[in-house]
């Protein structure tokens, strides 16, 4: 397993920090990419940040009411070593699912 740290991004044009309103995930949670992760408030607006990737949450930074500076750690994920490198996600191997049945019969002439 490898740990990946995600810092607070610049949420506007030149904002320098954001205040944690509520964490929607907790250490130990398995999260999917784009899953709502945390609600924060900046001097411009309150907004919900989606998870940048899939993984298990190792640690979150900041309690509700606390301020975090842009570029400082926000959350740490644990991911399998064989997960996708920098871009994308490893496709899940699922049992094939179908809705279409073949009703036509080949004419054997």
């Amino acid at each position, binding site marked *: 397993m490898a740990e990946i740290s995600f810092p607070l991004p610049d949420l506007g044009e030149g904002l320098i920090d954001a205040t944690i309103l509520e964490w929607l995930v907790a250490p130990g949670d398995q999260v999917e990419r784009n899953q709502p992760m945390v609600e924060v408030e900046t001097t411009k607006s309150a907004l919900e940040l989606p998870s940048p990737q899939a993984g298990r949450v190792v640690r979150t930074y900041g309690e509700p009411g606390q301020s975090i500076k842009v570029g400082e750690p926000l959350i740490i994920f644990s991911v399998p070593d064989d997960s996708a490198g920098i871009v994308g996600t490893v496709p899940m191997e699922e049992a094939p699912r*179908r809705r279409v049945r073949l009703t036509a019969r080949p*004419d054997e002439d």
Partner: protein
Amino acid sequence: MSEQMMSMQQALNRALADTLRNDPTALILGEDVGTLGGVFRVTQGLAKEFGAERVFDTPLAESGILGLSVGLAMAGFHPIPEVQFDGFAYPAVNQIITQLGRMNYRSRGVFPMPVTLRVPSFGGIRAPEHHGESLEALFAHVPGLKVVSPADPQQAYSLLRYAAGLSDPVIFMEPKARYWQKAAVDMDTTQSPLGARIARPGKHVTLVAWGAMVARCLQVAELAAEDGIIVEVVDLRWLKPIDEATLTESVTRTRRAVVVHEGPRTAGLGAEVAALISEHCFDTLKAPVERVTGFDVPYPSGDLEDEYIPNIDRILFGIQRVLEHRRG
């Protein structure tokens, strides 16, 4: 026989290592291929084993990567450049078409271009724009290039070893959606790396596919068998030149064909495959060749790609259409 279970990443890594070991003129270059080992870890450990003079990072400039490769090839080296993602090949298209593809022709054989360009290709990994494109039709249209795509770890190892031994430029399209699945690889296989291969023999209809669509077509073949339809799957492998003999032999037996690819439909490689089958099998075909493809839109963001890439149901519908067709 020396079979080992490995992923396509590992099979490609092994093929590159074996190439570097056997060919002292072979070089690997590209963005992050050295220290990092590539974003998909395909070149992992190679810089350490073979040295930074043979496996090296380049600036973020695909045109430069290919221009450098053309020059190195003229100087007697055998470059194996990587373009990190399909969509990043576009900035290098000028070098690929105007230099790489025709230097051998232009120089009357004085400067052959033994360049194997690796391109992680196609969609399926929920990546952003420029990370899910299918460039086979574009490159197959360029005189002087060969184009190939492996469907599984065995093909990846065999085809990369073979491509890297050619004196012609090869565009090597790696299906990134299939990088992680493991399968047995025989490093000493006697199976020919040339032409197409019948991935599953069948009887009623031939599915023609390449890259990641081969695995999906094999799933479809399993499902169709439940309905009594015995599907043959042809893994085309070489997209230029296309193995017309294997295609013709298969469709002459099954008398129906469906070609499946991720790229847009209009002027996609499926059109070429359909034309070849029509030319060679016109009198035996029971239905027009069906195409199940991506759509004529820019490749969508990851959240929508399942709607874009041919899925099991769309392929089954394609089979249904060729089975239902009756001559008027």
